[in-house]
């Protein structure tokens, strides 16, 4: 796949900034409006380069199947941040009408069939969507995003083998942010513990396996783009390990109501006391890094960057206000949508 031109790179930067702004506002909601977000919310800050770099390779009808950590993708696919925020805020105008919440977003009209909160299962759903595309000969490719921790769930292995045997048009993007909830990957992944990349798991299925720097959207673009071309050509799936650091903790702290919940410190510090690790990750934040690169190559000026950032801020502020103003669902609505 051809490298993205300057405009497309700016497009990438724009979406990275929008996702970051969105996630920061979600996080702030726990402080500004306690109780408005319930259950468990998971943020994508740190993942922006990986998400947008990957999705920049999409054909417009390609499908995206993420996990419960799913706020970022729909923003790139064209879903209005209003609908996403309203959903997270339990509102009637949420994209899932308040039925799903942060972990279970869905926007099939924008090529996002839906997310599962159970680790590993969405990998199989993604392969199923790819099977549908294959049978119906739509030429679509499915982007399956999931975490490093999920790659220890049976569903991951079973699905990759089957996808390889059936040569399904799917790209498996393993987002290695080095943590599964509070556990550092060194404690639970045999490849990592042995000093090997997680992309080596691809060998179990004789499919291509590549590890890429997930803080650089162009590197992600290249690796995913190659895999997408392969998938679209009927040659089957690939496994891309995209390495980046999650900049927020796993999710808001788990407390029992009415005890208020908020985001704590990142597990690197909170659990392991590894401040240096976290500082290094902060210093390697993909957003200022890409901004600097774009400015350096002249794709972006300080002013145009600022414009993008301001616009994102305004857009997400609007989403917050929209969501706060949206009514809660009527109690009896709960009886809808059980049966099709």
């Amino acid at each position, binding site marked *: 796949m051809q490298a993205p031109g300057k405009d497309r790179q700016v497009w990438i930067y724009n979406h990275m900034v929008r996702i970051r702004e969105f996630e920061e506002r979600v996080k702030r909601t726990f402080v500004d409006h306690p109780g408005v977000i319930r259950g468990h919310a998971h943020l994508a800050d740190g993942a922006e380069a990986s998400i947008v770099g990957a999705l920049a390779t999409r054909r417009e009808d390609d499908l995206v*199947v993420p996990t419960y950590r799913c706020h970022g993708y729909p923003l790139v696919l064209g879903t209005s941040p209003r609908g996403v925020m309203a959903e997270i805020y339990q509102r009637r105008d949420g994209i*899932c009408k*308040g*039925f799903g919440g942060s972990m279970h977003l*869905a926007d099939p009209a924008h090529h996002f069939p839906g997310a*599962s909160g159970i680790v590993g*299962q969405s990998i199989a759903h993604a392969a199923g969507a790819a099977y549908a595309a294959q049978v*119906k000969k739509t030429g679509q490719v499915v982007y399956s995003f999931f975490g490093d921790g999920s790659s220890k769930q049976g569903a991951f292995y079973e*699905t990759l*083998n089957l996808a390889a045997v059936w040569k399904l048009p799917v790209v498996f993007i393993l987002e290695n942010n080095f943590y599964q909830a509070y556990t550092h990957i060194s404690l639970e992944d045999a490849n990592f513990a042995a000093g090997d990349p997680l992309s080596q798991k691809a060998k179990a299925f004789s499919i291509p396996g590549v590890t890429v720097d997930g803080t650089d959207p162009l590197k992600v673009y290249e690796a995913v783009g190659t895999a997408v071309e392969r998938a679209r050509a009927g040659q089957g799936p690939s496994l891309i390990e995209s390495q980046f650091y999650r900049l927020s903790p796993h999710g808001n702290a788990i407390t029992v109501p009415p005890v208020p919940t908020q985001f704590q410190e990142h597990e690197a510090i909170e659990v392991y006391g590894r401040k240096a690790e976290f500082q290094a990750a902060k210093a390697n934040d993909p957003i200022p890094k890409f901004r600097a690169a774009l400015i350096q190559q002249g794709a972006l000026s300080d002013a145009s960057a600022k414009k993008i950032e301001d616009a994102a801020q305004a857009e997400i502020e609007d989403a917050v206000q929209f969501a706060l103003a949206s009514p809660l669902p009527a109690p009896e609505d709960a009886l809808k949508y059980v049966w099709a």
Partner: protein
Amino acid sequence: MAREMMFGEAIATAIMEEMQRDSDVVFYGQNMAMTERDPYVKKFGHDRVRLTPISETAELGIAVGAAMMGLRPIVELYMAEFMLVAFDEVVNEAPRLRYMSGGQVKVPCVFKAGFGFAAGWAGQHSNCIYHMIMGIPGLKVAIPSTSADAKGLMKSAIRDNNPVVYLHHYMLSLDKGEVPDGDHLVPFGVADVKRAGTDVTIVATAWMVKKSLAAAELLAKDGISVEVVDPRTLAPLDTKTIIESVKKTGRLVLVDQAPRHASAAIIIAGEVAEHAFPYLKAPVKLVTALDTSVPYSETMERYVLPDEDKIAQAVKSVMAAKTAKA
């Protein structure tokens, strides 16, 4: 027009006809579609008919994902218990994704599985798991007892826009019965009175319908008139027809191949306790498997499972309990 068919053949016929009718129907599973001689492969090709590895989680999860994108997958699972390694897909994915999306998607798929292998398959292959899934909102459960219902329920299952677990009893596979040709659809949630009677109602499913009918035959000789009601689907459950029957007979025996607290029988008994209490002339009576796993040896297996005699005895006991009310 109708034609005599074996139970298993009736299911296959339904699948064939529906695949012919609707090109979105696909069919896959382990140990099928292995060669070009496979009848489904011959007719519908390898895109729509596929073989899978022993990967139930992937198989069911792929069905869910494909269904969300407009296919109507039927997954061949052979034995219902194999779903347990992938139970999250059955219980927590297929029936929940529509609801969680606020009605944006539907997940039409059929998980087809044999069950109740009461022929020496022992502890891990002979069980009944319907009690686990008949109360999951968003999931339907079909459980035919005759060839005609087998065909009609499979067709309805395939056309349903919700996920359906379709359970066919191994011991009925070779049983023959008249099956209507063509578009014979058995609606979900409509029980069938397999035998009309006036003294006692028996509610049973699948193989237990056959055994209950045999017991009813025996009891008729003793002058006891038994009505046998077959719910045909456990979700939705046609409580209404069951209650109507209880209103008439005033007595209820529930027959189930599973142990007591893992049975559909006890759940139906609970419904009756709430909704048909005033009509009961005697306490309900359960005839279920004993509270053990299923043993291998035939002597022990028989001892554990319900049979005609146990059913007949239970019916007699509720007949005897004439004025049991306080």
